[in-house]
């Protein structure tokens, strides 16, 4: 039922869910993930189609090393953009930050649509493929997700991660405890952007074409739904949410556009039925105890 192509899409969904989760873990509702995803994707599409040094062939293949380089560059460029933009928009709080980040997504979407070298509405196509089949993308997507998950897990036992949790609970108290909240929020925002940028670079190759629609407001809402459904108290929440919500509409493909209604319903019903999302701290604690008992 789930083929390799859908599996890669699900993993990309999980990665984007994590990208929304990171600022949220510091109490910042940023919807900018699609903007950074678009930056990474556009950069990878441009580089691999135009820069011959990357080694793209006429047959449409690409060396694996070039893909890794693009993942790094995509993350780097998105991170730099986040550093610049973050200084401005992170002064805003709550819903105002969300609106400002939606504006960023729109600005980038319109820019990519109209820039002379990004292919307009059609976009960039014939992006070289480092792997012959969709199955080849499973491993790099999985590796990227594992790396991101590992980093999120480590964060919880680090000053930066604790500072993020403190800001989420009470920003003023965090400041009064000597935490440079501006820097911590910016760090979370940049990490989120790097992750989205690298994910975009991978997605551009996987999808084979890239255009402005990849990073739109719809994606903001979709990726937010990943976190709402999965839960925002643990990094596992957005991963589960991303996997499930990407798979669901594909499996329901026969019903067509109703999938957008479905996302709306999840955002509407999710907080009502499971206010903390599917993955809650209580659930993780229960799983932990269960695991310990099995080991005995």
């Amino acid at each position, binding site marked *: 039922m789930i083929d390799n192509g859908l599996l890669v899409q699900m993993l990309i969904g999980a990665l984007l869910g994590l990208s929304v989760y990171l600022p949220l873990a510091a109490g910042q509702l940023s919807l900018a993930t699609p903007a950074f995803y678009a930056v990474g994707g556009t950069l990878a599409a441009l580089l691999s189609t135009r820069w011959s040094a990357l080694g793209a062939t006429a047959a449409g293949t690409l060396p694996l090393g070039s893909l890794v380089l693009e993942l790094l560059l995509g993350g780097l460029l998105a991170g730099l953009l986040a550093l610049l933009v973050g200084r401005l928009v992170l002064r805003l709080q709550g819903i105002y930050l969300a609106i400002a980040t939606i504006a960023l997504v729109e600005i980038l979407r319109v820019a990519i649509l109209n820039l002379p070298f990004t292919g307009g509405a059609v976009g960039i196509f014939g992006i070289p493929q480092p792997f012959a089949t969709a199955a080849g993308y499973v491993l790099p997507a999985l590796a990227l997700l594992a790396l991101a998950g590992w980093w999120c897990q480590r964060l919880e036992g680090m000053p*930066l991660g*604790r*500072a993020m*949790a403190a800001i989420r*609970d009470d920003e*003023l*108290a965090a400041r*009064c*405890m000597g935490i440079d909240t501006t820097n911590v929020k910016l760090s979370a925002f940049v990490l989120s952007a790097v992750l989205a940028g690298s994910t975009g670079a991978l997605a551009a190759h996987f999808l084979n074409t890239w255009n402005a629609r990849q990073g739109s407001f719809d994606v903001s809402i979709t990726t937010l739904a990943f976190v709402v459904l999965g839960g925002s108290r643990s990094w596992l929440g957005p991963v589960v949410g991303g996997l499930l919500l990407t798979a669901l509409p594909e499996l329901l493909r026969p019903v067509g556009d109703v999938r957008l209604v479905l996302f709306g319903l999840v955002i509407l019903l999710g907080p009502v039925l499971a206010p903390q999302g599917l993955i809650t701290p209580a659930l993780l604690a229960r799983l932990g105890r269960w695991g310990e008992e099995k080991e005995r």
Partner: protein
Amino acid sequence: MSKPLLEVRELSRRFGGLLAVDRVSFAVQPGEIFGLIGPNGAGKTTLFNLISGTTAPSGGAVLWQGTPITGQAPDRLNRLGLARTFQNLRLFEGLSVLENLLVALQRHPRSSALDGLLGTARHRRAERQRLDTAWQLLQELGLAALAERRAGTLAYGDRRRLEMARALATRPQLLLLDEPAAGLNPAEKDQLGELISALRQRHQLSVLIIEHHVPLLMRLCDRLAVLDFGVRIALGSPEQVRRDPKVIEAYLGSGSNAGGRAP
């Protein structure tokens, strides 16, 4: 006298038409417990917010060991050595008691994000030190048995002590306590006085304390300032302040309005 640790000079704050703090001056000497009392609405908490950087003053200056620090951000002031608690308790309620302290200990010692990510020996050593200090503070304030509990689930008196522990974890030279006895029962209030004295000794602290429970302050403080309608109406030892006619008038009201406001 040695150079004051904290000096407040002609500090004012206006909220629209209300002058909440009106040219208040005083100084806290190193090692001193300095009390701030006054009837409700006298401007005590506003003055605290001005000193700790959470509200910008409209005029005047705050000096830290002789250097102006007026209007600096609260995180910078904390790093200088000034930590506060909140009248309405602002714990990190979703975190455990231990984590609340670890947040405050994040600069003692410092370790970089890269060390943390790679789990280097330096990071592990720093984490061990933080944990040691956190446990010491928990034991000192009688919170060790509650270490794993979520801060939001604690009883009121425990929350008050956790706030003090959290402030102490940032290694302040000056501890600002905003009504630490509020909501405590009489037995807890008695213990609080002893606790604050003990903490001053062990951590070489100066303490600036706002409190409504006047008997506690009379016992505890080296000196007191009295605020009324934003103006400092008295300053001196507890004995001097107790006898000051202006203080008696502010608390008990003058003849025509006797008993208007109780201490």
